[in-house]
């Protein structure tokens, strides 16, 4: 009997799986405060101010101070809220975000304590579909959060999230088909190994652009942050959430950004591979992946500081009338080229 979701023929001993889970969760939890601080600092510089610089050296203690502040706040619940759904919704969001984190590969199979260990949570044969499946579950976190708050702003925010997520999921998935056709596998480690020699950002450039635009929408980041447009909806689906529950949503949002950055790194930027044939020892690989993820995160922040928010009808026509046909065309052309070259 093999293990469900295991693409490779072997599985590590159970203690190694436990250690891997803990390490991956730790990496995720450590990256979020770094990204938080980076966002506030970089946004500050873009807006000609310093950003947080009071807590610790260079303001480095700011994320910790933020988290302590949020966790010690009153756990407020509106009287109109539906109790157990209001309680479950943020947990769904954070569980889905952590679940999706498991698939990002930080390196190939290496030898740790004499055990052949893959530097990834799991390597599934369905690859990107795994992330999409968790995205579908994360959607219910948003939706139920907005609906169970019993507030019009929250409800409208979650409705926008629903429409936006299903619109852009299609284009995002279609953009990946080009990569899968070129790599001829859906396993993420297989896709990285197929990128030896040339990263897919070059042959799949259009796919990369479409994937990134759709990812901005999928993670509700500006310029597609209509679900929490402050000026119109005060705070979108998380308007009524405070304290610990807000922290969960907040963490889930930043974790989703990290997961999407990891996916872009793996699918288009060669994962743990370095350019120009540089072949470092195996322990460098995870740091290469994390550096690439952080580069993508800076790009996310850069775009947030640069572009204004779209209008809602513009969002919908961009998704359905421009991105979807382009990504279909990209998949078609890739398939024709691959068949012709074979």
């Amino acid at each position, binding site marked *: *009997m093999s293990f469900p979701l295991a693409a490779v023929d072997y599985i590590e001993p159970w203690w190694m799986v436990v250690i891997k889970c803990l390490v991956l969760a730790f990496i995720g939890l450590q990256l979020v405060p770094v990204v938080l601080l980076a966002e506030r600092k970089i946004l500050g510089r873009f807006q000609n101010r310093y950003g947080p610089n009071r807590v610790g050296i260079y303001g480095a203690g700011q994320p910790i101070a933020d988290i302590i502040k949020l966790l010690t706040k009153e756990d407020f619940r509106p009287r109109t809220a539906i109790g157990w759904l209001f309680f479950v919704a943020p947990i769904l969001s954070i569980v889905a975000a952590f679940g999706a984190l498991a698939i990002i590969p930080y390196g190939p199979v290496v030898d740790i304590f004499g055990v052949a260990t893959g530097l990834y949570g799991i390597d599934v044969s369905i690859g990107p579909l795994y992330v999409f*499946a968790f995205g579908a579950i994360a959607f219910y976190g948003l939706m139920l959060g907005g609906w169970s708050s019993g507030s019009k702003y929250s409800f409208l925010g979650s409705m926008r999230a629903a429409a936006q997520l299903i619109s852009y999921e299609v284009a995002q998935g279609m953009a990946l088909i080009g990569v899968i056709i070129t790599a001829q596998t859906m396993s993420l480690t297989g896709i990285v190994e197929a990128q030896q020699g040339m990263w897919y950002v070059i042959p799949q450039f259009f796919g990369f652009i479409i994937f990134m635009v759709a990812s901005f929408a999928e993670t509700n980041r500006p310029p597609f942050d209509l679900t929490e447009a402050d000026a119109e909806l005060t705070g979108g689906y998380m308007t009524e959430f405070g304290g610990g529950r807000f922290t969960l949503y907040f963490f889930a949002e930043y974790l989703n950004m990290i997961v999407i950055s990891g996916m872009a790194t793996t699918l288009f930027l060669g994962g743990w591979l370095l350019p120009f044939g540089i072949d470092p020892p195996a322990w460098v690989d995870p740091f290469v992946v994390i550096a690439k993820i952080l580069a993508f995160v800076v790009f996310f922040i850069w775009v947030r500081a640069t572009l204004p928010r779209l209008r809602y009808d513009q969002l919908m026509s961009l998704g359905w009338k421009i991105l979807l046909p382009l990504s279909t065309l990209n998949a078609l052309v890739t398939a024709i080229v691959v068949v012709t070259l074979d």
Partner: protein
Amino acid sequence: MGFFFVVFGVVALAGAVGVVVLRNPFYCVLSLVVHLIALALLFLLLEAQFVAAAQIVVYAGAVMVLYVFVVAYVGGGDRPAALWRASARQRALAIAFGAAVFIELSIAILGSGLRALGTGGPDVPAGFGAPAQIGELLLTRFLLPFELASFLLLVAAVGAVALAGRRGGLGEDRDLSPGRSTLDLPIPAARGTMAEGVAGYGVTTPMPDPEYKGRKLEEGEGV
């Protein structure tokens, strides 16, 4: 594995029962989502990873999203509006059809399915249920049903577009297509002024008299 099978099976059954039993339509939809996710987990136990992922992405992630969308807008409340009341004949028909489906399923299960009980189940070859295998089957053995299903979906999509297009889009007073600014829109009858708020919709707001030059201050008045 047997333990997980029982757990997911019970959750799937509970979800299915919930869809029928619960009164609030929003909870019915959520119950259906739970049922679909439990089904996906059962597929996972059967090594059908692709089917499991497709189940979650397509059903929980797209189809049910639309259900939630609609129910959240029009449903809600513990006592939904009675849109439709079943007559006695319809109830009898429903019971008859339910019994027919039950008998049919019982024949199918008892006639063939239970022979595998007590055996270890079929041997699963390596790579079973992987996307590559499913893709190959779809393009060879099941090509015709696959193409027919996609044709059916195409027809449905064209029909949806035709139905949506019949309304003729936004009216002239709301058309903000490229090249038109808000300044091109006609001024609506109600302008949201304070006078309308007091006297009701349709009250023409008195415009300031352009000839009015102000009045002289009385003795002892003003600053």
